[in-house]
């Protein structure tokens, strides 16, 4: 056996990075590496260390390269970090390129036959005979490919100083207690660990040391958090169509619905879930179910929203409720389907032809994914309109540590729905009459007995009594009221979150940019630049947003798209302040990182 060694790093003598490093694992898609990587992430998390994971995967089932990055951070930073202190290279296709891109001093664990150690002299190499180890530890040759990845978990655990008991626990958790699979994987992992104990010297470059930062926290992805929000919000009709990265939202919901949405008396289902023929039909189901009184939703990504646009305009104009989750990905067109972006901001803000304005929610944390999804159903029924919950692949599909979710105790707000008695008592009811002056009218549900309240919903011009009308005054009345209704929403959508350092310079961001902005703000402060950070959480802009815009001398709008779409919305909404907004952009498909933000803001400041 080759005497592999973890040589002291060429940058030797540098302080050991305790609980503060990134590991990048390069594998082949479909090789089961996701399980191994999640186990490694969980094991570090169980050691009490704040950790985040990013899976950079191809649009492919098996065979193309995939990278997984794990970041441990004692300070609690969870944004993507561009530099990596450890590389685990399992993919022959990308190994040379990965080496070329490596940061000086990185520890490189690689599959021995790849013979990478001659490529650069400023890296610390650890060749591992994976094939030999897997052959010896796994009796079933057809499982070698899958189990092989578990060996690098063992090797990494040894080098990083992770307690093997935590690794074993993480395996059991990840494989949901399937006894045979758990044993097989634990054995392989142990083989890697034992081999490393015997053959590798210890290293002092990066280490995991037990801490207490993660006690009581959960690990979850945003799609699951949104699915749980919808579950607790009592969604009753789901029409959907598969699309990356949104499918797992509904798929996870289906799993939870199996357990939590059966009538205990009859065993029958209290939710209808139908995989439709396309996104158009999904939108039709959502809006008509909402119109008929159900709490309804769909989950899709940008291409799906494009297809749903006509229906969403109908929903806006006829005032039918429904919740539309957009787990955004990199566009335009098919774009990069497995990469993240925030490039559907303007699409969702004004989805459909004609004049339309939609309420959008931008969760930025896992707790908000849960809570905003819950709230979206109230807002949809309260405002009788399509509501967008806009996340992205980074929030939706990556693993995040989070506080456990608080129980949403607030009772459902089913909005202004008239029952049989109320309809009978009401004089001169009109479906689109603004009785309360808030732009929100009273509706009736199909099937209500008593002979009152029936009306014909139409996407064509209508008056306050839902009658067909092409009269300019009727059209203006409806469109004016819809605008008023949107204004009313300002008081009911979640307001912004501030992180102020006492400055007249603003940083404004939303959604998944949050962790990178927080980190960037700290770096900028250390460099002497104070900023006040506003994290936007909804459209329309609330009064607090108005005040912030007026008060700041400059507002750096951080977003993950090319055209500065959110900045455009701000310039349009606050034309008198238009020159204040400076775009800080990151849109290459990777999640945004702190350094990109720091560099761009610093460049603006030096101008």
């Amino acid at each position: 056996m080759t005497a592999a060694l973890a040589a002291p790093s060429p940058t030797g003598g540098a302080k050991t990075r305790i609980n503060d490093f990134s590991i990048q694992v390069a594998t082949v898609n479909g090789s089961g590496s996701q399980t191994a990587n999640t186990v490694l992430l969980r094991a570090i998390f169980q050691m009490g260390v704040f950790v985040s994971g990013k899976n950079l995967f191809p649009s492919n089932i098996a065979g193309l390269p995939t990278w997984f990055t794990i970041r441990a951070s004692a300070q609690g930073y969870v944004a993507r970090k561009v530099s990596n202190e450890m590389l685990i290279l399992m993919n022959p296709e990308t190994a040379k390129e990965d080496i070329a891109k490596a940061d000086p001093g990185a520890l490189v664990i690689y599959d021995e036959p790849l013979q990478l150690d001659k490529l650069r002299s400023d890296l610390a190499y650890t060749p591992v005979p994976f094939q030999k180890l897997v052959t010896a530890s796994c009796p079933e040759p057809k499982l070698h490919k899958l189990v092989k990845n578990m060996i690098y978990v063992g090797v990494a655990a040894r080098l990083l100083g992770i307690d093997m008991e935590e690794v074993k626990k993480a395996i059991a958790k990840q494989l949901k207690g399937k006894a045979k699979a758990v044993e097989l994987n634990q054995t392989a992992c142990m083989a890697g660990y034992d081999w490393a104990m015997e053959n590798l010297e210890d290293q002092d470059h990066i280490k995991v040391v037990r801490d207490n930062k993660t006690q009581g926290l959960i690990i979850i992805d945003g799609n699951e958090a949104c699915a749980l929000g919808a579950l607790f919000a009592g969604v009753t009709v789901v029409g959907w169509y598969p699309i990356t990265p949104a499918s797992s939202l509904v798929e996870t919901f289906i799993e939870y619905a199996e357990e939590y949405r059966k009538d205990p008396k009859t065993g029958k289902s209290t939710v209808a879930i139908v995989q439709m023929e396309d996104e158009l039909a999904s939108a039709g189901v959502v809006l008509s179910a909402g119109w008929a009184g159900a709490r309804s939703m769909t989950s899709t990504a940008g291409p799906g929203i494009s297809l749903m646009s006509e229906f969403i305009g109908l929903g806006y104009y006829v005032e039918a409720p429904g919740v539309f989750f957009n787990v955004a990905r990199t566009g335009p067109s098919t774009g990069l389907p497995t990469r993240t972006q925030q490039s559907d901001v303007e699409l969702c803000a004004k989805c459909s032809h004609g004049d339309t304005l939609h309420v959008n929610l931008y969760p930025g944390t896992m707790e908000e994914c849960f809570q905003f999804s819950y709230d979206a159903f109230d807002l949809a029924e309260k405002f009788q309109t399509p509501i967008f919950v806009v996340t992205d692949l980074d929030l939706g599909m990556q693993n995040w540590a989070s506080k456990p979710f608080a129980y949403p105790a607030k009772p459902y707000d089913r909005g202004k729905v008239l029952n049989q008695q109320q309809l009978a008592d009401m004089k001169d009811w009109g479906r689109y009459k603004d009785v309360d002056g808030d732009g929100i009218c009273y509706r009736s549900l199909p099937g209500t007995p008593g002979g009152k309240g029936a009306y014909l919903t139409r996407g064509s011009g209508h008056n306050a009594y839902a009658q067909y009308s092409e009269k300019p005054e009727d059209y203006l009345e409806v469109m004016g009221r819809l605008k008023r209704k949107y204004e009313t929403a300002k008081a009911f959508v979640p307001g912004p979150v501030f992180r102020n350092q006492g400055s007249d310079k603003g940083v404004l961001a939303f959604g998944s940019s949050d962790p990178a902005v927080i980190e960037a703000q700290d770096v900028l402060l250390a460099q002497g630049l104070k900023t006040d950070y506003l994290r936007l959480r909804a459209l329309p802009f609330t009064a607090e947003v108005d005040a912030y815009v007026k008060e700041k001398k400059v507002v750096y709008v951080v977003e993950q798209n090319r055209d500065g779409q959110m900045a455009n919305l701000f310039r349009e909404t606050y034309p008198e302040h238009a020159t204040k907004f400076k775009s800080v952009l990151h849109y290459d498909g990777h999640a945004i990182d702190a350094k990109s933000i720091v560099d761009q803001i610093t460049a603006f400041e030096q101008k």
Partner: protein
Amino acid sequence: MTTATPSAPVPAAPTNKLGFTKQDYVGSKSTLCAGCGHDAITAQIINAAFESSIEGHRVTKYSGIGCSSKTPAYFMNQGWGFNSVHGRMPSIATGASLANRTLINIGVSGDGDSMSIGMGQFVHAVRRNIPMIYIIEDNGVYGLTKGQFSATADKGSHLKSGAVNDFPPIDPCTLAIELGCGFVARCFSGNPKQLNAILKAAFAYQGTVVLDVISPCVTFNNHDASTRSYKHVKDHDFPLHDLGFIQYSEVEDVEIPAGQTEIVTFPDGSKVAIKAIHEGYEPTDRFGAMKAIHESMAKGEFLTGLLYINPTQPPLPEMLNLVDEPLATLGEDLLKPSPAELDKIMQALM
């Protein structure tokens, strides 16, 4: 001095079992062209609903875009209606019928709305057996945009302008049978008796009813060179049978003649009595029906009547094993998991 002539007492309008008069089933005034076949269909929907004592408030009417799609405004004002977007009526019916499974769903579409832009939604609604009467008011042209060919226009048929259709027609009925629809019928808007019997049977049916009604467009497709003109359709209409529909509540009181009459019984006990005119046509024989329809189409004829019937297939809410009460009105107590359940979910994620 004139004396008032005593007026004759106005006879009370007849009422149905629910105590409603026919007037209770009407809608707003039609704005379609005078003589439009669609208005004849509307009249029979009103008659059939009245005669079947349909509860008006449970009726929900759906449509897409086009002349046909305007008609839900013209019948049953007691029911709710949803005039949606072009070709998407089926998904509207799907969502609402899932939200409230007690609704009686009527979708009205046209040949353009269903066989071109809405083909995808048509086939999938049929596949899923949405509980609805899906009426296609079929005239072979786009009326509302002034007379372009639709996908049901016969190959070689002419527009008023002289343009000739080069493409073969799509037949909604054989397509529906192919897709597994359990109630497929074709009627001619000029044969109210047949349409009335079929609509009454359709009201009693649980799943998707596909009802293709040849309904000539008097403005754009009623000329001599059209295969969808009144005259042409009347001359080529071959009714398959005399139909009688007996609602479940009346089954005891009605004597069904023995002999040539075939009886099809619905799950609720209602019966359709089918007395054959066209020798050898068997509406419960799926493949036989397809063959006969194709043969008649090749001869340029319209076989009308109950083309195929199989009343045993479960509709979508049943396939999804939904609770009996409307999902729309389920309470928070049944929908929202408890704090203990959230805690259990959170524990599993730690």
